[in-house]
């Protein structure tokens, strides 16, 4: 797939992401494939992920923006809505996708998900169970994982 066929929307989004990055979020396209983005999200303050730097990959399928981007955490994270493969449970990445959403809004949503884990709607069952049984302890684990895996070093 040649980058020369890149729709103008993707070019514009990319330019805007680079020129006006959202706070705590960076996304830059791969040189080999402009539909593939290397993403970094800083753990939101007041969350168990504070201080962490989380790497993600984001891919814009051929149908984008009629279909949602595919996004996955590369950094290990202890979160009830993110599984061990880094897959994210977020409605706008599935049935609630709208072509009016963009890479930026998707990443902001993921950042918000880090601030608001939702163990009632889990993707990672064990984590969610842990979260519901003993939230304090689960949060401690999440902080620990953040230190160990997302220190940004």
């Amino acid at each position, binding site marked *: 797939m040649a980058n020369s066929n890149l*729709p103008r929307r993707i070019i514009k989004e990319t330019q805007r992401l680079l020129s006006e990055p959202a706070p705590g979020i960076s996304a830059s396209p791969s040189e080999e494939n402009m539909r593939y983005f290397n993403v970094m999200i800083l753990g939101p303050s007041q969350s168990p992920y504070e201080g962490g730097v989380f790497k993600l990959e984001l891919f814009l399928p051929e149908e984008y923006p009629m279909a949602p981007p595919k996004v996955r955490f590369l950094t290990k994270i202890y979160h009830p809505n993110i599984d061990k493969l880094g897959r994210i449970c977020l409605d706008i990445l599935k049935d609630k996708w709208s*072509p009016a959403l963009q890479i930026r809004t998707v990443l902001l949503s993921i950042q918000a998900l880090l601030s608001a884990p939702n163990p009632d709607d889990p993707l990672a069952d064990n984590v969610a169970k842990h979260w519901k049984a003993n939230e304090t302890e689960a949060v401690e684990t999440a902080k620990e994982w953040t230190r160990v895996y997302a220190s940004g070093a």
Partner: protein
Amino acid sequence: MGASSSRRRRDDYYPPPPHYTSYPPPPPPPPHHHHHHHHPPPPPPHHRAPPPPPPPAASSYYYHPHPPPPHAYHGPWHPAPAPPPPLQQPQPPALTGPPPEYVEHQQAQKVKNYVNLHKDTIRLEPDGADPDRRLVAFTFDAVTDGRVTIYYFAKEGKDCSFSSVYPELQTLTKIPFQKGLAQRFIQPSGSGVDLGFFSLDELSNPSGEVYPLVVYAEAYPSPEEGGSSVNSTRAQITLAVLEKHNNDLRVKVIKQILWIDGVRYELQEIFGLVNSTEADVADADADDMGKECVICLTEPRDTAVMPCRHLCLCSECAKTLRFQSNKCPICRQPVEKLMEIKVRSPEP
């Protein structure tokens, strides 16, 4: 961010990504992967300009099911910083029969509105001579001379005529005005009504189609101004209720109707019409997400989704969307119809 921009913009061929053939990569039996709904982000589709609620609008572009009337709107007659104009749908005809399976893609047509009351400016002011009586005041534009009639507790009758259900309350007078933009209107002293007599309930509810306040603004274009059909009425009617606010009465407009050459239109705002009369799409790159199609981020928006009235698409993307989704990109409501609205730049 590694890649330099010159490199990125190059148009040459890039091989596929080294490791991005399938996604997600090593797919083991997926843990139940049903749809979840998270609260955190009902992310603003475009966060700079959240679509509804929209700015209130003045008027000038209307969809019309019939051939356009003789004097279609061409030029700007708003005061310069005119608010975005609303569109309105025809009340009666056009949409009869069951909704079609396919999504209609219609062209909007323009109808000239001769008088426009700025609906967010309408107020009740005490009459200096008799503070118990209230005078109706507002700002309006008129392209021709005309006159205003104010009704209290009025009901709509045939052909957009109005009459008060308490005829003894007031003597109806038609207050003349001259053409001009952004004029201030205030009811003449002594012609107001003492509303203290009515209960708040009565004032704030349009009960049984009776509206506590109706402003009927009609244009009488002279032959030079407007043309041949001087006899036909061209009016904009504003229907409002009165609400208590900080110990005072505040006017809340419920709807505006246009009655032009025997056709009744209800004015409705179009969401996302950002002063499209300016040639500002070229500027869109600047940082302004307000004016381009939400799908291609490139072309100007010229197509509204109905019935939710989100003007968010260009006509090309609207065609694409039709085949791929039946939901409005902004609000996810089902799309019944797409309406193309060519907003022409003002001609000097």
